């Protein structure tokens, strides 16, 4: 299974995301923001970082990168797409996911090993987890507060579209402690924490993040 990872100017975690894909048993393909070409991949990851310097709003300029037209079309066609941190912000700016990410309510950058509860284990990126399972992955962001209007939050909760939720602490002021969400179809997932930094015992808090990537490979295998 070929999983593409897009590199934007200012992406930081693209190499880690590609490494996570390989460790999960997939073939990682480097994609470039300036090329309107997905190189035949089966799924796409938008990695963390500070695309275009986070100028204007996080993800606001990346949304209009040539590659994003292809990503949006593929996502609409059902291709699994995962946005991590800055990638989540880009997915919201692209309207592939509802809501927006604003500056942390405590106004400081947060960097910690964060416990999450998996609330939806039926998406293309979380089918390798059990619903209710708690996992620990790194979280690092300055603008990770998930917000949306009350109707959208209620809809996300009612439809089971909250994918992961913060446990014990709300590290950035996200409404309802929402750490990640999915679209109606379950193929597009965005989250602020970084599962790609928790894929090897040597570094990071463990390997709890690996199943995000193996889940996509499972989902692609099932649909092939």
């Amino acid at each position: 299974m070929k999983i593409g990872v897009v590199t934007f100017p200012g992406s930081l975690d693209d190499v880690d995301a590609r490494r996570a894909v390989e460790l999960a048993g997939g073939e990682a393909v480097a994609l470039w923001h300036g090329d309107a070409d997905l190189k035949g991949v089966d799924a796409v990851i938008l990695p963390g970082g500070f695309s275009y310097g986070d100028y204007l709003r996080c993800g606001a300029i990346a949304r209009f990168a040539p590659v994003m037209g292809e990503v949006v079309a593929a996502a609409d066609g059902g291709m699994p797409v995962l946005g991590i941190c800055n990638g989540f912000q880009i997915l919201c700016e692209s309207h592939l996911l509802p809501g927006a990410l604003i500056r942390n309510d405590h106004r400081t950058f947060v960097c910690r090993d964060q416990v999450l509860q998996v609330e939806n284990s039926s998406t293309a990126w979380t089918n390798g987890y059990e619903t209710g399972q708690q996992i620990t992955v790194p979280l690092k962001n300055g603008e990770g507060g998930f917000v949306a209007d009350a109707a959208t939050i209620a809809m996300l909760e009612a439809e089971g579209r909250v994918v992961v939720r913060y446990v014990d602490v709300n590290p950035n002021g996200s409404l309802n402690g929402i750490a990640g969400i999915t679209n109606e179809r379950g193929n597009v997932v965005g989250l602020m924490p970084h599962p790609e930094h928790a894929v090897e015992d040597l570094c990071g808090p463990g390997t709890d993040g690996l199943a995000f990537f193996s889940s996509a490979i499972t989902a692609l295998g099932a649909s092939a």
Partner: protein
Amino acid sequence: MARVIVDVMPKPEILDPQGKAVHGALPRLGFTGVSDVRQGKRFELEIAVLDGDAIAEVHRIAETLLSNPVIEDYTVRVDA
């Protein structure tokens, strides 16, 4: 040449941590009469030919790129 101003502000119901930080600094400087601060962005667009189409285009620019309608409101005005 005309200058068109687009002001972008966080929606009233959206938390504005930057405005809060500025507000929190005021009493430390001895300014005590300010009850709240909201921080937004101001864009100045230089337009060669200012007509109805140009203004409509600025609105499209404001709603697609300059602001995120989920969290922000914008206003468009021509600089006098």
